[in-house]
């Protein structure tokens, strides 16, 4: 026990003296939370739209005006030449082309039907599909306006007016992507702090030769590893605290659920990722190897963790992979606690999964670390 305290004292002294790590503990949550929720948003705006108006009618002008007034679109061209619009699309200056054919107004007034053509640059798939669906929504509402005004006679106008779906978004009433992203970013912070710091730690002692001095001493390897876990664990929980404060003041996000539950999960999760980092550190020979391995896994953990794209829309085989991803569990849990206010009892299965990872990674690190080669 006394041996352990000497080791712990050493680890704390080393961490406290490492200015860069201390600066990162503050900078990481601040910068990530200040920038990422704004940048990593699914809400697509500023879609460049080129309108080709071959009709030159009152209605076509009205439609163009309506589109240019929308906050989703930038009107980059309101002209008559399809060739010119296509050129803009090819140069990447326009994402969408809307072509209003000749006799658009006439046909609409006479038959209550008119064709419009939309051309989409699908290189950025999200921009293309979301852009065309926004465009469709605006066209629908334009048509509804015309019917309401009696400009065109639409046989089922009354029916259409009655069946209107008004969604009610529970737990994130404004469908604000920031509310959705912030919990995910908190998890990312915990993962980075635990994983990367620990992954670099033992291997740096290997490079400096101090690990050999430890290996030739009677220090039990469990004590040595545990003394490494504890400082990272404290740093991780501190980072989370800073993150929560920033989420509160920058975005007004206050966890709907209990902070204690949130911390219970975070505590176990950081132990898991510190164990994961130590495991890499034990296996790697140089910091370079260690960093590369850590990044390989962390990228998979983030991309397969539901941070950016929902797990439920992944193909089944990919969903199976996420069962082995501790990050996926915590992202889910933190969103549920922060947004929905889920209690500990609701989250027991996830808790045991994360606990399982913590045990596996740390025990594996202990067995993988051999004082005698």
């Amino acid at each position, binding site marked *: 026990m006394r*041996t352990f305290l*000497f080791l712990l*004292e050493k680890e704390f002294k*080393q961490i406290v003296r490492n200015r860069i790590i201390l600066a990162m503990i503050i900078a990481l949550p601040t910068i990530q939370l200040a920038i990422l929720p704004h940048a990593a948003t699914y809400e697509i705006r500023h879609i460049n739209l080129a309108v080709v108006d071959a009709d030159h009618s009152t209605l076509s002008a009205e439609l163009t005006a309506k589109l240019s007034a929308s906050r989703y679109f930038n009107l980059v061209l309101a002209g008559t030449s399809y060739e010119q619009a296509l050129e803009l699309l090819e140069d990447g200056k326009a994402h969408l082309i809307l072509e209003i054919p000749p006799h658009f107004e006439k046909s609409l007034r006479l038959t209550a039907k008119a064709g419009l053509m939309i051309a989409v640059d699908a290189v950025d798939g999200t921009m293309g599909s979301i852009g065309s669906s926004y465009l469709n929504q605006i066209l629908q509402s334009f048509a509804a306006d015309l019917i309401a005004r009696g400009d065109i006679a639409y046989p089922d106008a009354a029916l259409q007016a009655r069946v209107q779906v008004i969604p009610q978004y529970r737990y994130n009433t404004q469908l604000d992507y920031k509310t959705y992203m912030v919990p995910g970013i908190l998890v990312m912070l915990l993962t980075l702090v635990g994983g990367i710091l620990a992954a670099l730690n033992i291997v740096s002692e290997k490079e400096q030769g101090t690990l*050999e*001095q430890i290996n*030739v001493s009677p*220090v039990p390897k469990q004590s040595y590893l545990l003394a490494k876990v504890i400082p990272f664990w404290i740093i991780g929980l501190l980072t989370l605290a800073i993150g929560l404060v920033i989420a509160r003041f920058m975005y007004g996000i206050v966890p709907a659920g209990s902070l204690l539950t949130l911390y219970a999960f975070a505590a176990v999760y950081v132990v898991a990722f510190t164990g994961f980092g130590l495991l890499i550190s034990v296996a790697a020979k140089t910091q370079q190897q260690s960093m590369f391995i850590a990044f390989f896994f962390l990228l998979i953990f983030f991309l397969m963790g539901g941070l950016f794209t929902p797990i439920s829309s992944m193909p089944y085989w990919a969903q199976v992979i996420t069962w082995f991803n501790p990050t996926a569990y915590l992202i889910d849990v933190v969103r549920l606690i922060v947004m929905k206010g889920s209690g500990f009892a609701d989250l027991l299965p996830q808790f045991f999964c994360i606990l399982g990872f913590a045990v596996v990674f740390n025990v594996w690190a202990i067995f993988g670390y051999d004082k*005698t080669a």
Partner: protein
Amino acid sequence: MSEAVIKVENLTKRFGDFTAVDHISFEVRKGEIFGFLGANGAGKTTAMRMLCGLSRPTEGHGTVAGFDIARQQEQIKKNIGYMSQKFSLYNDLKVWENIRLFAGIYGMKPKRIAAKTDELLNRLGFMAEKNTFVEKLPLGWKQKLAFSVAIFHEPQIVFLDEPTGGVDPITRRQFWELIYEAVEQGITVFVTTHYMDEAEYCDRVSIMVDGRIEALDSPRELKKRMEARSMDEVFRQLARKAQRSAD
């Protein structure tokens, strides 16, 4: 003749097809300075790592401080000190903190550590550097400190792997004075070196060539037997047989 604290028989270490240490046998007696000589790549460090419980033997057996080198490595580690070729105190800890850490992990009590630290630093004339980060010390001082740390917990045997690499002869001489002091306290010293003047300071030396021990005796006997004027000559005569290239 005093008892043997290290006994080794047919100790062998292979890495794949390469036999780094090839069936070596020897004994080291309590209280002696045992020089372990050999060219670079002769297998000195590999052999020493097996004695310290850092590496498992492929074949053969042996005991260090009465414990089996193949099975009781952690017991051995309680009874030895070790100073590696690569300087290995913590650069980001102060002088006293390094002493405290290593003394602590060998089970010494904090009070005793504090008292002994001051006593040691005074004896070395090093009190002024008590609060200096080890990183800032000159190499000669780092080596003296590393040695003092290696014997701080009063082990039975101390293993030194090329302890004086890269420093001038005067600093090396001072280092050897520390070794003699340790021997006076009853510590057995097992030291690898390729400085032949240092070989002269040892009670007995073994000379390894290509993983085998080619000669083992006191420097005086070796010189007599090989009709050499210095250990340097002895070493050259033996090392000439080497087939392996140095690493």
